[in-house]
């Protein structure tokens, strides 16, 4: 049980700045997800919290204590790696017990703790197996088990589900969420998958090129993106962006409208566009239309509505409230 504070944390590798000052206050038991595109510095940030990467400037505090100089083992954290990083020559039991053995935990307590973690993660039948004899999902659970048995103050996850197939990913996502609720351990979770971020997070941090663009509850961030980047990154299919002038907005540079906020009609509304192609997904249909000057616009509508045929001209309409206006600096106006 712990709080975690990042206070203007920066990181440079030689001359290249990778993290440009990140501030977060994580409260006890909170599940924070850091989401952003590849290369934006998510792993670097996480590794700084873990103590695997030095901190160029700023301060990291766990439970109010500065840990900048502390070794990884002194920080009372546990980390789940993307490739699981299991010890390939040890059994599942030994993998989970490793940290406890080093901490000189009594034998019977080790056995008890590993047993209860194995029960929680449904790993009991596999305790004597080697990692190579397990499926991807089982390895994932062992990695989680190894983190759990040490009862750390903070869990760190670096894209733990990205090596799993789509179905398993959804299942493990749920399991991780339940587990974290059950144990109530403060968690920092890195992913580039926005669905994972939306579903797991109590609060999420959207990172963009080493800067935390926005921190907030998933729905808040979705409904109220503070920058053009966040509006474009969170939400699938992505927000449509149009020049402010082209939709009659006099302030700002760009206007963003989410696909589900546009209605298609035969009668004139705001803009005319020609249907390029449709993707019928069952419950919903994505209609891609081309504006006269060539830009593609995506509209999401209910699957029960008739499919517009390709090549027909339709009108795009939306409420004023649906428009998200961004200035030249990419910030919300």
């Amino acid at each position, binding site marked *: 049980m712990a709080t975690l504070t990042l206070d203007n944390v920066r990181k440079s590798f030689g001359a290249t700045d990778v993290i440009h000052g990140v501030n977060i206050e994580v409260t006890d038991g909170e599940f924070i997800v850091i989401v952003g595109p590849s290369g934006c510095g998510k792993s670097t940030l996480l590794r700084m919290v873990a103590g695997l990467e030095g901190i160029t400037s700023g301060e990291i505090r766990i439970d109010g204590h500065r840990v900048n100089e502390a070794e990884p083992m002194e920080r009372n954290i546990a980390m789940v790696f993307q490739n699981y*990083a299991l010890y390939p020559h040890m059994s599942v039991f030994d993998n989970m017990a490793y940290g406890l053995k080093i901490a000189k935990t009594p034998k019977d307590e080790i056995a008890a703790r590993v047993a209860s973690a194995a029960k929680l993660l449904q790993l009991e039948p596999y305790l004597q197996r080697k990692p190579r004899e397990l499926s991807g999902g089982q390895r994932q659970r062992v990695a989680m088990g190894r983190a759990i048995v040490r009862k750390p103050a903070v869990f760190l996850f670096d894209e733990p589900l990205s090596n799993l197939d789509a179905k398993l990913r959804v299942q493990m996502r749920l399991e991780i969420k339940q587990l974290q609720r059950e144990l109530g351990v403060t968690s920092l979770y890195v992913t580039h998958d926005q669905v994972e971020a939306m579903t797991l997070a109590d609060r999420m941090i959207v990172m963009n090129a080493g800067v935390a663009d926005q921190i907030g509850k998933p729905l808040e961030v979705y409904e109220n993106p503070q920058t053009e980047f966040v509006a474009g990154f969170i939400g699938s299919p992505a927000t449509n962006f149009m020049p402010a002038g082209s939709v009659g907005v006099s302030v700002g540079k760009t206007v963003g409208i989410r696909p589900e906020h546009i209605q298609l009609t035969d009668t004139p509304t705001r803009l005319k566009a020609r249907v390029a192609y449709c993707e019928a997904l069952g419950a919903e249909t994505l209609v891609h239309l081309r504006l006269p000057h060539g830009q593609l616009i995506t509209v999401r509508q209910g699957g029960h509505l008739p499919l517009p045929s390709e090549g027909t001209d339709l009108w795009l309409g939306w409420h004023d409230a649906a428009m998200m206006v961004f200035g030249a600096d990419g910030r919300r106006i």
Partner: protein
Amino acid sequence: MFVPDPFGLKTQFVGLGNFEYLLGDPYYRASFVTTAIFSSLVTVVSMGVALYLAILADRLIKGSGTYRTLLIWPYAVAPAVAGVLWMFMFNTRVGVVAWYLGLLGYDWNHVLDEAEAMGLVVVASSWGRISYNFLFFLAGLQAIPRSVIEAAAIDGAKFWTRFRTIVWPLLSPTTFFLLVVNVVYAFFETFGVIHTITAGGPQQATTILVYKVYSDGFVGQDLGSSAAQSVILLVLVGILTVIQFKFIERRVHY
């Protein structure tokens, strides 16, 4: 299985006589002990130093080539040349090292002192192997995923514990491979070094089996005995290799 008469005019069939004679020969048995000591020392020294250097290098480099190249060059020096070099350095009259040892009050004389002679051929033989072993160890170390080491660090293992419980076991396939290769090397390929530095002396103190094959056969002209020795040597290495591979199968598992 044949013994020529003293003038080489006739050969007489003696069956396994050469083998019987050999096994009763105290000099031959002593040569076994010498070989055992010599090859264990060469293997331990060359692998130990190589592993130490590889660990240092593994921490230093992630991909850069210069340091590695720098450490390859002793391998390029042919073992015999290395032998000559070592012999000069330790030469009782003109050698640099021998001279310094003399200054320190140590009377170096590997021509007379058996232990010193053994030490010298061991060092000279190991020297050429270090780079080879180093490269394999380095490759082995670099093949261990960094995240596994990091996970161990987070689990609370300090450097030495990590080495003992993670790195060493994961390195064991490399280690066993090198063990086989180095023992075979020490058995056979050290001939040049021994020939140039000590010629098997003093008093056979550095006459390993392969050198005895040469000295009995070509110097002593006892071809029968020499041939028998070759056969024994061959069988021995075969057995050693099989044992080591059996051992590997049991120990190297993951």
